[in-house]
Structure formats: structure tokens, C-alpha cells
């Protein structure tokens, strides 16, 4: 064919934050394909210096509106590790619920509001209100349920209020948990319905596979959202304190971006990584959703990250119900304890909806932060997105330019990038 | 919830509130109010305390004439409460723990009830006048399908302390005494009060010094937790029915009766906070200490957070605003608690804040509680619960401490705050629901002002006096008080509206034929018969010509009843002149002298009047100061200067009449926003004899 193609997608839509896609092909040969991030840097690590231990989670939660609960929890875990603060079983269970609330919200937003329009051939969810109202209403309902869960535990869905060092400023009532349990039970059916809508259009997800490494938290008890060691599909398991040897941040010579790599030149984190590593811990209902799409570990198709998110929606619903039952069984108790200020360094890792999130703080004897480092899921994925693009672009270069553009957009969207997060301190520039 | 169609004009039930209120009223109670000059009120309070018995019906007596007290075991008491919860007698609201404090909340079981509480964070008032309440809902796509939300759900308030029982009686007087508030009324009638004697005294309460630690009436049942048994005093037939239906009681033993008596008798001694001055002295202390340094000193520490008013069981001020739903169809008119400590409490649409100084707001609360309301209603609007003192972070809100300070260091510079004796005319029922009316004509007067001719859709003729005002409603936007600008006696009326706030800006966009809501007329107008036979000098500035025009037209229509008529009018510039045609027409008359002036006139502007402030029109004027009544209406800044010029002409005070602007929100003396010292401008004003207000510190 030998066409010349120039694609420039400025400020890719339906993603969190500002990113650009560039593709130049000459005579049917891809010369340049780039994923560029154009978000203002915000310097959070610099900001938290000198701030009190009890402020850190409130400040770093503001790194990202969509995954503010994950940031709060990673921050609290790092702070607690640094100061040697123990938390109760009840606190751990409630925190896991909070994480699930956020995961449900974020995944529903992504699959339902951001990806579904691609599958149903629309520019956004707005025209779908007319053409596919029933599906939209279900998605909105699921999204509301998710936010209700976050609000019940955190006081607010975005920028949680009740999460604090050592525990909670307020715990939900048993009545509230019972009400929430009923909501979640109902949501399981809605989740299956939404999965059905996606399945009906799943043929639009490109069949593209590129072998890569997947990294996620992993443990022997559960799906490891809140806690675990670092694990890799290439084998190996390391305590989170050794994260630096896994994430290996490095600076690309021709740009300012910090990349991460482990065994290969890039790795992927997120729903697909968790599924690939922790599928054995999934509930029966979640595995049924995976079965609907034929999703099996280890899957190397990044577009299947959308499906992995659907699987996780179901699993988060099921596991949340289990946690609520356990909490009700134990009986909820107001807890209070004095926090003792102690100097030290601590690493806290949780799974944000988009993958592995790590905060690392050094705290002095007055309880003030002296040094901070945050490893963001989307940062870890930027290199993998770029590598995927480099392999995907030549394979589809003979298609119409519009389709190439859409496919590249869909690829980036499949990663559910959270660019505000990833630029909490840095800009990625591939040029 | 009960729905009422506003346009039907008929409320679902026409009920007469049959509870005798006489115990709370000062002086005669024939629907009018008498002037409560400062000398008479302490006598009134004595009447309040002795006259409350009829409030809830009759307390049951035994054969010997003593109050009948029943008793039951603690277990039976708990069973009784559980039965109330289960037996569909209404929502049972009791005192429950909230962390280390207490609150009124629905009870799920008797175990949750905490009769050993000291004080609740908010008073039980919140179940009679909720913090937020939808007064009505509407659909602006269907004009005037307005539904009044009347909450007729049955409730039992359980564990109400005596001071709160008394506070509810005060609320009853405010909301039901005159201008009955239908929303409050419905809740109140459906609320059963089971009071409780105080077991634990709140740290900041001084109820013992006020005598509000015990109560003899105002409840349906009064329980006294004696440890193993519970004594119950029956306060009403309804209380007796509840007790008979849901519990087994016996007559209290002599020992139990003595125990109850002893408990109540010993209670005052258990209060750490004590008033050093009798509460009958509060009014005198406040009259003598308007400029006491404590107001300035304390107000410096004041956060202006309004907490003291928000937790108060006797505070009753409210704000009303319209909230539209996002679909732009349904809306709600919402009433919320407001407080006089908040800066914008007195703010009018034009931006003026009448109590801008923090010291004035800080002081106002004490004067309202200790002086103005006692003068109006005959009771000190404080029951000594101590909630304000507990909640005030800088700790400057304690009436007990303030009164003790004033008592020990008094200024003795007496200021009088008489409340004019005005017979309040106008509506008594259906106060909050506007009636529909249609815009018949719009006549633009200036860039900012437009004259509207309005006719109520019911066809009723608005009966008003010149100087009165109506509340104009635009659903979804809100309400604004507007003076009537036309002469009475016609089927339509005119409003001059300056485009300055939410409502007036929206009104400006509306067309002839569109509908607005009207409430009123409200307030005190000009005393047309009182000024008959006199020479009349009208002095109007700016928008002040609107209410004045109503009277001018009336005077000219009844020209024979009046002597010389002179009209002085001043405004900013030629382009701002209102009623230009009327001014011209009036000046053409042989028996009317019209003088007009503008503050400034640009070069080349067409202007046939004077240039200079309105005050410059007065000195050259030839009139008989004894025969002439001066009607002064204008912007706040105008009064002082105009009146000073009139005084130079030796006009006696009693010949001057003014009309004052304030934030008149409810129109019926409840919301509190228009208050000027002890006066409600929406009731006693906006028209005042100068003699009635000249010494009011907050008037000019």
C-alpha cells in the first residue's frame, strides 16, 4: 500500500489526565509511534516535606481523585510502618472494604463510561443514554453502589475523611453495613448484566498479544488488594520493602521521564497483572465472568485488561459481602489508641485499581516527614504502553487511518491510565 | 406529609388550635398586643409562671387535692417504653448517647433511652422546627401547582427536661400565638411530650437559678426515675391514655411521692452555676448597660460562628430559600435555622448589612433574650440549659456570666426601647403559601427600575394601606418584600421594583401575562385617618417615592381631607428619576407644590429641576411646622440629614413619619431578620412615627 500516515491525538479523551498519541508512517512503514504525557507536574514529594505524620495521607490523597483511597491507604501503611503503629483486625477489614469500594467505582467508571462507548461505537456515554439506556442505567447504578460503599466506610468517596493513622475517625454502624450488604448482593446481578453487554461487543477488542512481565502484590490468603509481597509472572516473590530492586526507576537518556523495568524492558501492573498472578484466589462468581470471555492466565493481551476489570468488579462485590459478614460476626467496636511518634522509614504498598501503588516515607522524631517517594501504577505502565504501541502499530498500519487512531486510543484506554497520578511529580516525554 | 394545593386557596383542614395559650401571654389576649413599656413586664413573668397550667390540659389530682402520681417498677417502665416503640403510637424519639454527649433520636429499644443524661446537644425543638424543612414543593413547568408539605406524623418525645418543656411552650407562643405557622402547628399537635425530671445537672446549666429545673405543666407525662421504680405524673388525658393502654401502674407510695418532692427540692443546690441577680432584673440591667464595655471586649473574642443561637432551645429565627432540582422542573422552598450572630442575617438585596458591627450582633442576642422578647411576649427567652455556654469555644456566650457581670458593674445609663403599639392587620392563616397573581402591565422607569401592575388571580381586592408591602414570590428563585406603590381601593395594585437581587432580577425578565406569587399585605402602613386635616409634606429620596406614591395618590384622591400638599423628591441623576409622568402631573395641579432635585446633572442633560441634595429643598420652603405632617422615605443615609433640616424648621418630632427598610423575610414577625432593637419592622413598621423610633440605637 505504501501510504503516508500522520496521526496526532492531542489530549486523549476518556482517560484521567492529559496524554497525547503520535504516529508517523512513511510508505507504509512506521517511523515513529509515541505515547506522550502532557500533564502539569505537581511535586507532591517535595510538598510533604516537613508535614506532620497525620497530614500525609490527607495531602497525598490529592495526588489522584479517582484512586484517592488507595493513595490514602498506601500513605497510612507507610506512615504506620515508619512509626511502628499496629492496626487492629477490624481496621484491616474496614480498609479492605474501602479499597474495594474504590476499585468498584474506578473499574465501573472505566469499563462503563470510558471503554463501553468504544465498543458500542459512540463518542461518549451521553449518546448511549438514548441508544442503550438500559445498559447505561445499570452502569450508573453499579457506580452508585460502589460510591455508597466508599462513603459508608470513608465518609466521602473521593478524598476519604475517616481513614487515619492507626485506624478510623468514625466507623460505620452495623445497620449501615447491613444496608450496604443488600446493595452489594443486588449489584452482583447488575455486574453480570453489564458483563453481558460488554461480551456482546467483545469482538471489538483487538486480538493482540505481546509477551511481557506482570507484577502485582500477592499473598496466600486472598486476592491481595490490601497487602502482600511483590510477585512476578516471570517468577519470584519479594517483600515490599525491596520495591526499589523491582521497580528500578531509571531515566531515559533522551527524556526526563522515569521509567520502570524489572526482568524485561517493561512490565505491566493492574487488573490483568493481578488476574494473572492471583487468579487462584478469585471467587467462583468472578471466575464465571472470566469464563464468559474465555479469560485464562497468563493472558498477554493488554486489551483483556478491560475484561480483567469486569472479573474484579464481581470479585470485589463477593469479597466485600464476605468482609461485611465477618465484621458483623465479630461485632463492631469503637477503637481508640494513642499514637506514639517514632522516627523511622516505612514502605506501604496497596493495589490501586490500576495496579501496584507504593509510598515510602522517612519520618523524624517529631513526627514530620523528611523524605517521600511514591511509585504510581500508571508510571509503571507507561513503558509497557509504548512497547505495545511499537508492536501494534506496524501490525495494523494497512487499516484506515481512523481505525488505526481508534485502535491506538483503545490500547491506551485499556491500561486505564491515571495520568494525574503518574505526573504527581513527573512528565513523560518520548520525543 | 399532607398536600395542599395552593391555588385552591382552601387548606385541607381548617383547624382551630384549641390549646389555651393564655398562660403565656402578657396583658390582654384578645388578638391585639398592648404596649409593653418597661415597667410592666416583671409582673407579666409572674403570670407566666403561674398561668401555664392550662397549657396541656389538666394535671390529674388525687382526692386530697394533691397532684396524682402513679408509679411502676423499672422493668415495667422499660416494658412501657418498648410497647410505645412497637405499638404504633408514633415515632418514639428519646434521649440517646452520642459519643460522650446526648441527643434526641429515634429509639429502637427502651435500653437506648438515657434518662440519666445531663443535656442534649440540640434541643427537642428540632422535631417541631426542623433544621431543614421543605415548606412546599412546586413544579415550575406547571405554574402554581404548589404543594405545602405539612408533616402530620405522630411523635412521642421521651425524656424532655423541664427547661426544654418550658422552651417548647415559648416556641408555641411564637409560632402559634399570633400568625399561626401551619407547619409548626401540625407537628406540635401530633407530638406527645413525656418529660423527665433532671437526674444529672449539666455543668453549664443554671436552670436552678431561673426556676426552670422543674415544671408543673406543658407535658403529657412526667417521669421521675427513682432507681428501682419510676414515678409518673399525668399531665394530660392523652398521657393518661398512653399510660393506661401500655403499662400497669399503681398509685405512688407516700415514700415515693416524698422522694420525688425531695429530688426536685434539692435540685437547685446541685447547680454549680448560679445567677447572682434575679431574672426579673435582666431587663433593667440590659436597659442600663447598652454601652457596657463587656459587649466590645467579648465581641473581640467572638468567632461569629452562630453556635450559641443554633443550639438554643428558644431561638426561633429562620431563613427561607428556593432550591431547584437539576432537572429544572421540581423545586422546594426550604426553611432552615438562622442566627442573628451571622453577618448576613440582616443583609438586604442591595447589599446593606444593618447590623454590620460584630459588637452589635453579639449584644443583640442578649438583648433579644433578656429584653426585647420579654417586652413582646412576657418571658425571658432563656431557660438556663447552658447549651450556648457549652458550645461556645471562646466561652463568651453564657447568659449567666454576662448577667452576673452586669450586676456587679453596671453603667446606669438607661436607654428605652419601647415597642410601638400597632394593631397588626392582615392575614392570620396560610402565611407561607403565596397566592398566584398575574403581571398585567410592565412600565420601565429607569435602567434599574420597572413598575408592575399586578392582579391576584383569585380576583380578590388586596386590602392595604399606603406604606404596606407584599412578599413577591418567584418559584425556584425566592421571595422579596416590595412596597405597594399604588393607591388602595382598586382591583389591581402596582409595585415598583429595582433590579437588585435574585427575585427582582428574575422578575425583570418576566413578561406581561406571566405569574408571580404574592403574600400579604404585611406591615404597618401610613395612618391615613390620623393625618387627615393636616398639611402634608412628602420628602422622598430614590426608591422611597414608591411607597410615598401610594400615599400621595391617596391624598390627592381625597384632596378635600387634607391641607397644603408639598412633594419634595430627590434622586441621583436625571436618568434615575422615578414616576416622571406622575411628578409632572402632580406639579400641574394648582393645589400641590412639587420640588425635585438631582444630586448631579451631567452637562447637556435635560433637567428642569434643582441640582443638589434633597436637604437643600427644605430651607427655602415655607410651611407651618405645627400643622404639617412630614412623610420621610428614602435610602438609610437620607434620614439623619433630612430630619436635621426639619428640626431647624422647628418641626416637632410627633409631626414626622418615616418608613424604614430592613430585611423583611417572613412578614409576620418570626424569622427575625428585620428586627431593629425590639421592633419587628415587618410588623410595627415599615412606617413609624418618628417619636417611636428616634431613640432606637439601631433605627438610623
Amino acid at each position, binding site marked *: 500500500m505504501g501510504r503516508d500516515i500522520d496521526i496526532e491525538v492531542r489530549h486523549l479523551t476518556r482517560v484521567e489526565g492529559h496524554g497525547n498519541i503520535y504516529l508517523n508512517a512513511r510508505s507504509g512503514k512506521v517511523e515513529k509511534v509515541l505515547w506522550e504525557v502532557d500533564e502539569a*507536574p505537581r511535586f507532591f514529594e517535595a510538598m510533604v516535606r516537613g508535614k506532620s505524620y497525620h497530614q500525609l495521607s490527607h495531602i497525598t490523597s490529592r495526588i489522584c481523585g479517582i484512586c484517592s483511597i488507595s493513595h490514602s491507604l498506601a500513605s497510612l501503611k507507610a506512615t504506620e510502618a515508619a512509626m511502628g503503629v499496629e492496626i487492629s483486625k477490624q481496621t484491616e477489614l474496614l480498609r479492605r472494604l474501602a479499597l474495594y469500594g474504590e476499585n468498584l467505582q474506578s473499574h465501573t467508571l472505566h469499563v462503563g463510561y470510558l471503554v463501553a462507548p468504544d465498543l458500542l461505537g459512540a463518542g461518549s456515554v451521553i449518546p448511549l443514554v438514548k441508544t442503550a439506556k438500559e445498559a447505561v442505567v445499570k452502569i450508573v447504578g453499579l457506580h452508585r453502589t460502589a460510591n455508597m460503599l466508599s462513603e459508608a466506610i470513608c465518609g466521602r*468517596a473521593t478524598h476519604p475523611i475517616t481513614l487515619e493513622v492507626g485506624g478510623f475517625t468514625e466507623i460505620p454502624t452495623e445497620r449501615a453495613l447491613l444496608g450496604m450488604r443488600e446493595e452489594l448482593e443486588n449489584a452482583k446481578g447488575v455486574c453480570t448484566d453489564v458483563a453481558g453487554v460488554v461480551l456482546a461487543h467483545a469482538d471489538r477488542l483487538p486480538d493482540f498479544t505481546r509477551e511481557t512481565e506482570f507484577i502485582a502484590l500477592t499473598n496466600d490468603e486472598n486476592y491481595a488488594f490490601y497487602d502482600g509481597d511483590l510477585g512476578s509472572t516471570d517468577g519470584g516473590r519479594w517483600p515490599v520493602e525491596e520495591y526499589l530492586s523491582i521497580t528500578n526507576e531509571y531515566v531515559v537518556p533522551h527524556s526526563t521521564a522515569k521509567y520502570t523495568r524489572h526482568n524485561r524492558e517493561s512490565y505491566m501492573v493492574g487488573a490483568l497483572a493481578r488476574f494473572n498472578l492471583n487468579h487462584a484466589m478469585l471467587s467462583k462468581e468472578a471466575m464465571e465472568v472470566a469464563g464468559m470471555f474465555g479469560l485464562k492466565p497468563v493472558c498477554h493481551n493488554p486489551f483483556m485488561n478491560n475484561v480483567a476489570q469486569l472479573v474484579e468488579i464481581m470479585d470485589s462485590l463477593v469479597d466485600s459481602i464476605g468482609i461485611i459478614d465477618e465484621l458483623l460476626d465479630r461485632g463492631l467496636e469503637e477503637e481508640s489508641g494513642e499514637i506514639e511518634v517514632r522516627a523511622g522509614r516505612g514502605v506501604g504498598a496497596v493495589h490501586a485499581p490500576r495496579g501496584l501503588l507504593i509510598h515510602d516515607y522517612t519520618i523524624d522524631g517529631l513526627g514530620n516527614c523528611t523524605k517521600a517517594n511514591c511509585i504510581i501504577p500508571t508510571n509503571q505502565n507507561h513503558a509497557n504502553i509504548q512497547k505495545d504501541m511499537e508492536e501494534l502499530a506496524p501490525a495494523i498500519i494497512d487499516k484506515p487511518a481512523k481505525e488505526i487512531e481508534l485502535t491506538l486510543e483503545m490500547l491506551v484506554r485499556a491500561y486505564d491510565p491515571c495520568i494525574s497520578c503518574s505526573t504527581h511529580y513527573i512528565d513523560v516525554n518520548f520525543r | 406529609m399532607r398536600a395542599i394545593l395552593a391555588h385552591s386557596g382552601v387548606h385541607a383542614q381548617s383547624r382551630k388550635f384549641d390549646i389555651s395559650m393564655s398562660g403565656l401571654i402578657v396583658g390582654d389576649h384578645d388578638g391585639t398586643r398592648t404596649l409593653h413599656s418597661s415597667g410592666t413586664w416583671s409582673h407579666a413573668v409572674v403570670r407566666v409562671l403561674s398561668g401555664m397550667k392550662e397549657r396541656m390540659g389538666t394535671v390529674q389530682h388525687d382526692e386530697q387535692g394533691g397532684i396524682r402520681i402513679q408509679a411502676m417498677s423499672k422493668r415495667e417502665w422499660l416494658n412501657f417504653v418498648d410497647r410505645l416503640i412497637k405499638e404504633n403510637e408514633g415515632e418514639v424519639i428519646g434521649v440517646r448517647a*452520642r459519643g460522650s454527649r446526648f441527643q434526641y433520636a429515634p429509639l429502637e429499644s427502651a435500653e437506648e433511652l438515657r434518662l440519666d443524661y445531663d443535656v442534649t446537644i440540640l434541643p427537642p425543638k428540632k422535631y417541631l422546627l426542623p433544621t431543614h424543612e421543605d415548606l412546599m414543593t412546586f413544579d415550575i413547568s406547571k405554574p402554581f401547582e404548589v404543594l405545602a408539605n405539612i408533616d402530620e406524623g405522630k411523635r412521642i418525645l421521651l425524656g424532655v427536661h423541664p427547661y426544654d418543656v418550658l422552651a417548647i411552650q415559648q416556641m408555641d407562643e411564637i409560632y402559634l400565638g399570633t400568625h399561626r405557622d401551619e407547619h409548626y402547628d401540625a407537628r406540635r399537635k401530633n407530638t406527645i411530650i413525656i418529660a423527665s425530671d433532671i437526674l444529672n445537672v449539666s455543668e453549664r446549666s443554671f436552670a436552678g437559678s431561673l426556676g426552670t429545673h422543674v415544671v408543673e405543666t406543658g407535658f403529657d407525662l412526667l417521669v421521675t426515675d427513682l432507681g428501682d421504680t419510676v414515678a409518673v405524673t399525668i399531665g394530660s388525658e392523652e398521657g393518661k391514655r398512653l399510660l393506661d393502654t401500655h403499662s400497669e401502674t399503681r398509685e405512688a407510695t407516700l415514700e415515693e411521692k416524698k422522694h420525688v418532692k425531695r429530688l426536685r427540692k434539692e435540685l437547685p443546690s446541685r447547680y454549680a452555676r448560679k445567677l447572682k441577680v434575679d431574672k426579673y432584673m435582666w431587663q433593667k440591667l440590659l436597659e442600663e448597660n447598652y454601652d457596657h464595655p463587656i459587649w466590645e471586649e467579648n465581641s473581640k473574642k467572638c*468567632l461569629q*460562628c452562630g453556635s450559641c443561637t443554633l443550639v438554643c432551645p428558644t431561638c426561633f429565627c429562620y431563613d427561607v430559600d428556593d432550591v431547584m432540582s437539576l432537572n429544572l422542573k421540581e423545586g422546594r422552598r426550604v426553611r432552615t435555622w438562622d442566627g442573628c450572630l451571622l453577618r448576613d442575617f440582616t443583609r438586604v438585596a442591595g447589599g446593606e448589612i444593618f447590623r454590620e458591627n460584630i459588637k452589635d450582633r453579639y449584644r443583640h442576642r442578649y438583648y433579644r433574650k433578656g429584653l426585647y422578647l420579654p417586652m413582646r411576649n412576657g418571658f425571658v427567652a432563656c431557660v438556663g440549659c447552658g447549651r450556648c455556654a457549652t458550645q461556645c469555644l471562646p466561652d463568651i456566650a453564657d447568659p449567666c456570666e454576662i448577667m452576673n457581670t452586669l450586676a456587679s458593674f453596671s453603667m446606669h445609663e438607661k436607654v428605652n426601647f419601647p415597642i410601638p403599639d400597632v394593631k397588626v392587620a392582615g392575614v392570620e392563616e396560610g402565611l407561607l403559601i403565596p397566592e398566584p397573581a398575574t403581571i398585567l402591565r410592565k412600565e420601565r422607569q429607569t435602567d434599574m427600575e420597572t413598575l408592575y401592575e399586578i392582579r391576584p388571580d383569585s380576583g380578590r381586592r388586596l386590602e392595604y394601606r399606603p406604606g404596606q408591602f407584599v412578599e413577591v414570590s418567584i418559584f425556584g428563585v425566592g421571595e422579596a418584600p416590595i412596597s405597594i406603590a399604588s393607591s388602595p381601593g382598586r382591583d389591581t395594585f402596582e409595585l415598583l421594583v429595582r433590579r437588585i437581587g435574585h427575585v427582582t432580577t428574575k422578575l425583570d425578565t418576566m413578561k406581561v401575562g406571566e405569574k408571580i406569587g404574592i403574600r400579604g399585605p404585611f406591615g404597618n402602613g401610613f395612618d391615613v385617618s390620623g393625618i387627615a386635616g393636616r398639611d402634608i409634606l412628602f420628602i422622598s429620596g430614590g426608591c422611597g417615592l414608591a411607597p410615598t406614591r401610594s400615599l400621595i395618590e391617596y391624598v390627592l384622591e381625597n384632596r378635600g381631607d387634607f391641607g397644603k400638599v408639598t412633594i419634595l423628591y430627590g434622586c441621583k441623576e436625571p436618568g434615575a428619576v422615578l414616576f416622571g409622568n406622575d411628578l409632572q402631573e402632580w406639579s400641574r395641579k394648582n393645589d400641590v407644590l412639587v420640588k425635585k432635585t438631582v444630586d448631579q446633572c451631567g452637562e447637556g442633560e435635560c433637567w428642569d429641576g434643582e441640582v443638589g441634595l434633597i436637604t437643600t429643598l427644605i430651607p427655602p420652603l415655607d410651611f407651618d411646622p405645627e400643622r404639617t405632617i412630614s412623610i420621610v422615605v428614602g435610602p438609610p443615609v437620607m434620614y439623619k440629614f433630612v430630619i436635621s433640616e426639619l428640626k431647624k424648621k422647628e418641626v416637632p418630632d410627633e409631626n414626622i413619619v418615616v418608613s424604614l427598610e430592613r430585611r423583611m423575610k417572613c412578614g409576620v414577625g418570626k424569622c427575625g431578620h428585620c428586627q431593629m432593637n425590639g421592633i419587628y419592622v415587618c410588623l410595627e413598621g415599615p412606617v413609624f412615627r418618628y417619636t417611636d423610633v428616634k431613640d432606637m440605637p439601631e433605627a438610623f
Partner: protein
Amino acid sequence: MKPRVAFFDFASCEGCQLQVINLEEKILDLIDVVEVVSFREAMKESSDDYDIAFVEGSIMRPMDEERLKRIRKNARILVALGACACIGGVNRLRNEWSVDEVKKEVYDEADIEGNRLFDVFPTKAVDEVVDVDFRIPGCPINREEFAKVVAHLAIGKEPRLPSYPVCVECKKNENICVFELGKFCLGPVTRAGCNAICPTHGDGCEGCRGYLDDPRMEAAKDVLRKYGVSFDEMMKRFNMFNYRKGAI
């Protein structure tokens, strides 16, 4: 005609736009009464023809300033959305240090010289660059308040923020004052409108909605001293969302 509405974001977490999505079922009403022409976080289409621009985020770079000025030119009404846009919010915390210093802390030895993406100046609120017609403060915004402002704009009623402090809403919620719980609270000087959400959930107000027009700072500091809050602690708390906004 339905007002045309556009959403834009600058340096922020985009959490305020998320609150618009979090209106859940009410979004269906929203898109019924206004025409959303740009909302990058949720839709592909975009347009420069709009009446009302909602702007989230702080202004950090000359390139942001240029973009914001273009938005101002296009919009009839510009509404600042959230703490970052209204007052600078947490983004302003970095103004404690020089731009060079924070770059060094974060990027260390990396070569970012001359890259326009890194051409940052001290954080600014939106109204430090262009005129702002209305504000919806908070971190994040209160979605009920957002809905109210949109409804007001659509029916032609000027949106007005509460002029009273958070304490008013806190009292109406019958909360135990967080000072009693030994916590720090900026409620007395902070503009209400959040329904006192933080104190209602047992945490002190952080001042994310900005101070009142006439905050009683000295009185508030007296209270904090009375409750034993040190100067250092006070400074950190006051600065969190209102960095050096006249408080200390």
C-alpha cells in the same frame, strides 16, 4: 436554548470532575438541561463554542496561562471548580520553596533544562490569571452544591456561596465539636457549603473551601491556643489548603 457547558482541567487530581460523574442518576438530568460540549475525562467530542466553562485545577506554567486565557475568551461565564482552581489548594504547598528547589528534590539530577513542560512558576489560583465569575470551592467539590449552581445558572439566579462558617452546618448536624475530641478544626473560619462533612465524620475541618470573607482569625487563634495547639502545628494546618492566606 440549552446553555452549552464545557469542563477543563489544569494541575489537579481531576477529583472535582469526578464528582460531576458521581452525580450518578442526576447526570441524566444534567445532560437534559445543559449541553455538555467538552468533558475530556468522559467524552471524545469537544468544541470551543460554549457559554459556561468549568475550570478545575491550579495554574503552574506559562502554557497553562495561555490555555486558560483562551478559555476565558470563549466563555460567557467562567466557574472555578474546586480548591485547586479557587484558592490553589494543596498545589500551593510547594510555594514554600523555590521552583528550582522543588525540581531538584523531585527530579534530582535529571536534565529537564529548557523543556517547556517543566517551565513552572509558583502555583496560582485561576483568579490570579483571569476573571472568575463564580466559584464552587472544596476538595473535592460538593456535588450537591455543583448541581445547585448549575440549576441556578440555568434559571438565571446568581449562585451565592454561604457567607457563614462550617460551624453552622456542623451544629445543625448535631456533631460533637471536634475540639472536644481533641482535634484541630478550621470550621470557625472556613466557608460552609460542604455540610460540615469532615467534622460530621469525626475529623477536623481542613479549610478546603477557603476562608470566609471576614474570617475571625485572631479569635480562632485564641481558641486554638486555649486548646494547646502549638504555633508550628497551627501553621501547618492553616497552610494545608490556604497557603499563607493571611492566616499566619
